[in-house]
């Protein structure tokens, strides 16, 4: 078991702890979102044999700053027949839960705003509230494209929440605790090895929940202009943009904590390990975005209900049985068994997977 580096009320006193970590979380969110916007544009450009932004500042590092400045100076437009109050509230409702998510993300041992004993449950509960903000945006805009995008978002979150939560339960079973800190400290072997199938399901589901490609059909620009934020401009659009990348950051941090043993690692300081893992996970998200084309809405639903959901149930059952009956031999054997189970189940379910009316091909 790893030990906590910092005392739970570092740097001393309840309010000092609270104040310091609110500042840390806010700065972390803003800095990482700005960094991620630059990183995604550059990495995607290089993978597409382009250069990406390289004019503003060294290596184009100031591009997100320039974008932010531009967006701040734009006119703030509310549609004439839109619901003004809801239109104004929607970005706030979408952004606040995102900020609240980071309260339970451990940056290193003890470096956490609130080590809730229901940490991961809190994340699942709070992260869903963002969807309400997005649906409010779609409704208040009085625009068919906005509403369509928002409806797709709600449909996908309702569907994908289930496999995501079921695959989290596998991790919780292994740990025996819902606290994010306990989950990290239980990972002598990273859970990506002990729960490979759970990781796969969680990652796919998380991509769908945060509207990343290939599941970005709620803001599919070739079909419905920009989805729920079609009618947004200026600062409110900037908030939605922030939410989009902030969610990607949150998912990277959660995947790091749940499956990649959080801040733990040799040589480097723990907070640096955490950052490195977050960036790696985000890189994989960008990598998937450059590779896979957007799915249709029926494919999205079929994937959730006919592929992820049964596999998540099976994964939960298998994990529970393993925990009950696994003899006291090395856990590395369990790693091999679990990887074999993952391969077999994914192959089997790919064979059984059908779209509507029993179609195999698209």
């Amino acid at each position, binding site marked *: 078991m790893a030990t906590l580096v910092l005392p739970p009320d570092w740097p001393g006193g309840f309010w000092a702890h609270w104040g310091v970590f609110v500042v840390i979380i806010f700065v972390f969110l803003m800095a990482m979102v700005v960094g991620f916007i630059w990183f995604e544009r550059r*990495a995607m*450009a*290089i*993978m*597409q*044999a*382009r*250069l990406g932004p390289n004019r503003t500042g060294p290596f184009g590092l100031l591009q997100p700053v320039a974008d932010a400045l531009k967006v701040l100076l734009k006119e703030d437009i509310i549609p004439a027949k839109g619901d003004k109050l809801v239109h104004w509230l929607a970005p706030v409702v979408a952004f606040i839960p995102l900020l609240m998510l980071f309260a339970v993300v451990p940056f290193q041992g003890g470096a956490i705003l609130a080590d809730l004993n229901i940490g991961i449950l809190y994340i699942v509960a709070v992260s869903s509230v963002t969807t309400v903000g997005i649906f409010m945006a779609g409704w208040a805009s009085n625009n068919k494209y906005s509403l369509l995008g928002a409806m797709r978002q709600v449909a996908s979150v309702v569907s994908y929440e289930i496999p995501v939560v079921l695959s989290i339960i596998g991790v919780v079973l292994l740990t025996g605790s819902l606290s994010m800190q306990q989950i990290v400290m239980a990972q002598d072997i990273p859970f990506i090895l002990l729960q490979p199938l759970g990781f796969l399901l969680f990652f796919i589901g998380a991509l769908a929940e945060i509207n990343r490609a290939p599941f970005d059909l709620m803001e599919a620009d070739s079909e419905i202009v920009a989805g729920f934020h079609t009618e947004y401009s200026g600062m409110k659009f900037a908030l939605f943009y922030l939410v989009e990348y902030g969610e990607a950051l949150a998912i990277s941090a959660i995947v790091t904590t749940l499956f990649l043993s959080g801040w733990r690692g040799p040589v480097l300081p723990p907070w640096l390990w955490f950052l490195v893992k977050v960036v790696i996970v985000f890189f994989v998200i960008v*990598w*998937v975005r*450059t*590779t*896979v084309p957007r799915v249709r809405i029926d494919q999205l639903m079929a994937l959730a209900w006919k592929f992820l959901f049964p596999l998540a149930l099976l994964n939960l059952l298998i994990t529970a049985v393993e925990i009950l009956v696994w003899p006291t031999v090395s856990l590395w054997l369990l790693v091999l068994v679990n990887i074999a189970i993952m391969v077999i189940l*994914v*192959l089997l379910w*790919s*064979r059984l*997977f059908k779209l509507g009316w029993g179609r*195999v091909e698209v």
Partner: protein
Amino acid sequence: MKFERYGIGIAKGLSVTIRHLLRRPVTTQYPERRLVTSRRIRGNELVWSREKCTGCGSCAKACHIGAIEITTSINPVANKYEVETYQVDTGYCIQCGLCVEVCPFEALYMGYAYERAQYRRNDLVQNKETMMETPDREVSGYFYPERAAKLSRQTLLLDRDKVKK
């Protein structure tokens, strides 16, 4: 058995995109870095030779835009036409190259330069003085293969990175 249905397709795609990380970008950052253009580029100016021109006016007749204006006067001493004014409004020119092809005395060429944007329309009009061949105003190899042979080869994107510049 089609393995594409078992996630292999996605894995293949991922491997393709990751390999592109190591590839050189195809973008050429234009003002800092220029590629050598085609030797037969039609440019966007005309180059005229005062010595070879006889003032026959074929170019003006061939120009269906009417961008070429030529007036001549008779020089009875030398028994030939003198070109009084010769000017081309390159703002109208569509780079069809008919004036160059029709010239019986090889006095008119397409230019090699392509950076002739101006702030005023009047600046686009070339007259006798600004049509002469100078080191700045090179002649393109359009319609004249022997001139083309003297120009440097076009850089293709394939071997762009071998060129030192």
